[in-house]
């Protein structure tokens, strides 16, 4: 072989490739200009040009496709152009050359390359092609593109000639013509009729999607592409050959649960696809959009997630081409579509005729079957699958109910002066009807499909405006309660419009300084905090506080300040947080304990954390103890918040080196977590990690090790980069160190540092500082004071950046650093 110097250079290759963008006529001139004065380059490019023009039987043989059929004559057909090329075959536009009339058609031919496959495959391919031919020959239906002819090319490649459809895919057609609901349903009924004919021949289409349903210019539906159809009748020729056709695998967007699971495909799979088509036709978007997901994710969604109701989907975003509204779909059409989309094939419509009959019933105003005979199923399914959802919906409705009744009470008090009994009765009725409607949405007997919490709340939000037109102050109260419930459920996008609308109404009805307005401002502040917008949150709370007056209820003032204090603490504004919380506590102390919603422990636990953060351990301890005393003295089951109180106090004791006191607190916190949260909750893992630390400090290494092991098991499902798991690794290194395995402890710590460097989030700075301090300690034990001080210096720098120079943790690191520096000087 020639040596490497003999091959064409990279520069020449790149230039040649660029020249391919020039037209053939210009290419040589363009290249001469580019290689002017560079004879070697010019020569190299010339060689490539020569090679490009030449043939190479070996290199070219692998690439022959059927593309060269253009211009050829196959039977009576002249091939005009290539329309589409897929994995298994190509489709050409052809026209008939014999006879007097000009007939256009589509010709489908097996891809030449695949036909060079081994015997077995070739036979299957032929059988497959035979099936499609058979299928098309058997189905004579106006809405199915028919077969005109068939044969084989001179190379022996079989081909089919089919009706050439001039029109556009279903989705494009409805979009362009902005069809009415009735027109859409009519088109769909034609498709159902076509599918009826297909199914009557015991054929499953298996690839129903909008692009396979064409609508001609005259508005006629034409079903295409039986390329992966399956013949169910096992005596039919080609039955069973289907397994190999899937190289043109179906689009996951239109696949049924059984298809994505690779289970047997039946007529019911086509019903499901019809459901998806109707969903998109009426709801404006796909029931599932999974093509961007990995197959595993797509499978999970298709097999487990219930799609949003078509009416809800339309409500969320209505494409401009859709003229009907959510109300047109709600109820019957929702139910019809959802019945076709059941996960269990047996529960879908048993045939396209049955589906068509139900749509017919809808069109003639009769009750549809999809909503009948299925209560038992719905209830069973509801209880089986959505135990959590039922609880959640119930909780939402309950929370709203209580909130609304309170709101109504407030509104009533406000308007007592008017003393208009009739108006009061009207308001009461409006509120209770609204509540009833909401609750009935969660009732599986009334709703065609179990609504999601989101559905319930969305509907609630929509209906408010129409319900309370005459009672703006009631509307404000309802919206604020709804918005606040949504904030607490984490549905911030839905909460914001409600809280904002409520605020407008409150301002109009009551003005600034009114308790309703203040509460609303405080809610908006918390919403801003949830959205991580501190300045905005601050603005709302300042506004709320500026409205306080002698008339403002003390409990309201205390809770606004308490929320504000928590928000400030979250952003490490600890001094400001402490100041606000102290004011909150002072106000709370003035509240009459018999006031509804009074909670003596509301502020003190927060005050404890903020004081702890500020480094005043003594005061923090007093607050923690008070917080625990108040919470423990409550009657009934233990307050879940106690698990945090115990843990926080234990941490404080640990920081103060009071291990014997820290341990029992730790264990109480863990016991409570196990009881309330269960054995796999991440929060249990964190507490076990802390227990390991405390044991380590007490030199109880076996207990420390046991706690770490258990924490590792509990945390196994969390990502390796989670704060808890990173801290656990540091604990493991510390245990190794304590056991005397210095080198291993050092290696572990450095590995941990490397992983930490790749992460960026809130708490990683402090963990990293702790790793540096640990490394310093190991070096000190090995009498390597130089390395020890440089590690300690890193910890100081990090803690200064994270906590500030005066923070007690920073000071602690500074002390460590000084110790090693002094040691160095003594040695030096």
């Amino acid at each position, binding site marked *: 072989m020639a040596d490497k110097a003999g091959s064409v250079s990279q520069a020449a*290759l790149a230039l*040649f*490739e660029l020249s391919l963008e020039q037209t053939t006529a210009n290419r040589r001139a363009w290249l001469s200009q580019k290689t002017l004065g560079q004879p070697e380059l010019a020569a190299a490019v010339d060689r490539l040009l020569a090679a*490009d023009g030449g043939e190479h039987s070996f290199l070219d043989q692998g690439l022959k496709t059927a593309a060269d059929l253009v211009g050829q004559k196959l039977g009576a057909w002249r091939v005009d152009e290539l329309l589409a090329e897929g994995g298994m075959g190509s489709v050409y536009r052809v026209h008939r050359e014999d006879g007097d009339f000009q007939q256009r058609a589509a010709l489908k031919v097996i891809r030449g*390359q695949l036909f060079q496959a081994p015997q077995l495959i070739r036979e299957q391919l032929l059988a497959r092609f035979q099936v499609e031919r058979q299928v098309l020959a058997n189905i004579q239906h106006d809405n199915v593109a028919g077969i005109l002819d068939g044969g084989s090319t001179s190379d022996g490649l079989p081909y089919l000639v089919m009706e050439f459809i001039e029109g556009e895919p279903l989705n494009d057609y409805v979009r362009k013509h902005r069809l009415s609901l009735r027109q859409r349903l009519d088109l769909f009924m034609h498709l159902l009729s076509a599918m009826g004919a297909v199914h009557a021949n015991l054929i499953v289409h298996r690839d129903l999607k909008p692009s396979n349903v064409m609508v001609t210019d005259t508005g006629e539906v034409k079903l295409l592409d039986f390329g992966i159809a399956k013949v169910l009748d096992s005596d039919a020729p080609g039955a069973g050959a289907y397994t*190999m056709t899937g190289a043109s695998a*179906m689009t996951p967007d239109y696949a049924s649960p059984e298809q994505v699971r690779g289970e047997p495909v039946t007529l019911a799979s086509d019903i499901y696809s019809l459901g998806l088509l109707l969903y998109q036709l009426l709801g404006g978007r796909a029931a599932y959009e999974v093509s961007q997901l990995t197959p595993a994710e797509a*499978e999970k969604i298709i097999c487990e997630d219930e799609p949003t109701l078509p009416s809800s989907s339309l409500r969320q975003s209505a494409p401009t081409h859709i003229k009907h509204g959510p109300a047109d779909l709600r109820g019957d059409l929702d139910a019809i579509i959802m019945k076709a989309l059941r996960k269990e094939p047996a529960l879908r419509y048993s045939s396209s005729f049955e589906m068509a009959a139900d749509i017919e019933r809808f069109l003639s105003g009769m009750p549809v079957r999809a909503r009948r005979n299925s209560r038992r199923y719905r209830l069973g399914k509801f209880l089986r699958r959505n135990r959590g959802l039922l609880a959640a919906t119930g909780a939402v409705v309950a929370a709203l109910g209580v909130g609304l009744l309170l709101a109504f009470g407030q509104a009533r008090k406000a308007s007592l002066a008017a003393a208009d009994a009739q108006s009061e009765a009207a308001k009461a009725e409006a509120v209770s009807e609204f509540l009833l409607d909401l609750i009935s949405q969660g009732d599986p007997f009334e709703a065609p499909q179990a609504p999601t919490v989101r559905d319930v709340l969305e509907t609630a939000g929509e209906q408010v405006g129409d319900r309370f037109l005459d009672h703006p102050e009631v509307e404000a109260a309802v919206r604020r309660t709804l918005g606040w419930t949504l904030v607490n459920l984490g549905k911030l996008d839905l909460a914001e419009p409600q809280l904002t609308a409520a605020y407008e109404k409150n301002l109009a009805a009551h003005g600034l300084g009114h308790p309703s307005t203040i509460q609303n401002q405080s809610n908006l502040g918390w919403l801003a905090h949830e959205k991580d917008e501190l300045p905005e949150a601050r603005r709302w709370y300042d506004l709320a506080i500026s409205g306080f007056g002698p008339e403002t209820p003390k409990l309201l003032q205390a809770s606004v300040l308490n929320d504000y204090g928590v928000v400030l603490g979250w952003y490490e504004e600890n001094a400001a947080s402490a100041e606000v919380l102290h004011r909150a506590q002072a106000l709370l102390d003035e509240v009459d304990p018999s006031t509804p919603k009074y909670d003596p422990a509301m502020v003190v636990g927060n005050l404890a954390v903020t004081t702890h953060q500020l480094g005043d351990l003594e005061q923090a301890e007093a607050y923690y103890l008070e917080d625990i005393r108040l919470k423990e003295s409550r009657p009934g089951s233990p307050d879940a918040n106690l698990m945090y109180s115990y843990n926080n106090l234990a941490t404080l004791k640990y920081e103060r080196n009071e291990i014997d006191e820290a341990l029992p607190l730790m264990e109480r916190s863990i016991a409570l977590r196990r009881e309330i949260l269960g054995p796999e909750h991440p929060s249990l893992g964190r507490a076990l990690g802390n227990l390991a630390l405390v044991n380590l400090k007490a030199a109880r290494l076996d207990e420390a090790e046991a706690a770490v092991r258990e924490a590792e098991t509990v945390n196994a499902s969390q990502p390796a980069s989670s704060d808890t798991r990173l801290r656990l690794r540091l604990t493991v290194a510390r245990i190794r160190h304590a056991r005397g395995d210095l080198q291993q402890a050092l290696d572990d710590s450095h590995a941990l540092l490397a992983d930490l460097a790749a992460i960026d989030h809130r708490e990683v700075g402090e963990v990293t500082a702790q790793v540096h301090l640990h490394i310093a300690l190991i070096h000190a034990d090995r009498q390597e004071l130089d390395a020890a001080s440089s590690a300690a210096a890193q910890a100081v720098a990090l803690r200064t950046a994270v906590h500030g120079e005066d923070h007690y943790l920073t000071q602690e690191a500074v002390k460590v650093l000084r110790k090693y520096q002094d040691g160095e000087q003594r040695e030096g």
Partner: protein
Amino acid sequence: MSQAEVTNLLKAWRAGDEPARNALMNVLYTDLRAVASRALAGEQAAISLQPTALVNEAFLRLVDVHSIDWQGRNHFLGLAGRVMRQILVDQARRRNAAKRDWGRRITLTGGAALTQFEDVEILSLDAALNELSDVDEELSRVVELRFFAGLNVDDTALAMDISPATVKRRWRAARAWLIDRLQETPGG
């Protein structure tokens, strides 16, 4: 290994699991080599051993095609193309050695061959491709996908995440470079 297991490997690899890729390559190597050997042993004399067909056949045989989308198929075929290249090279090397020892020449195809792969051609193409990959790695990848995996222009574009027009241009450049390179190899 069952179809479901291979399919799961393919899915896992696509989800970013690198060991799954290696496992998949092992499965493919064993499978494709067995088919190639059977053909050589004359068991199925009528079979024309065209690598792209073998690779496609492997996809249909090994993977549950109904649960894999187009992109997944192209990924699989791309990998199979790489494995196929290796198998062809290995076999050609072995046979070349045999030829030297026994003075016997065996062609890879039997019966009414649609394709005649000459061992020497395979080996020189492999060597040239290695050189091309030093000059421009993407060009050699285009050749692997189109020549060894049998992907068409659009599928190659999908598999490489570049436009079909670029695939066409890159293939043409690679082809010219390879032809030039192969022509200057004496005895090719």
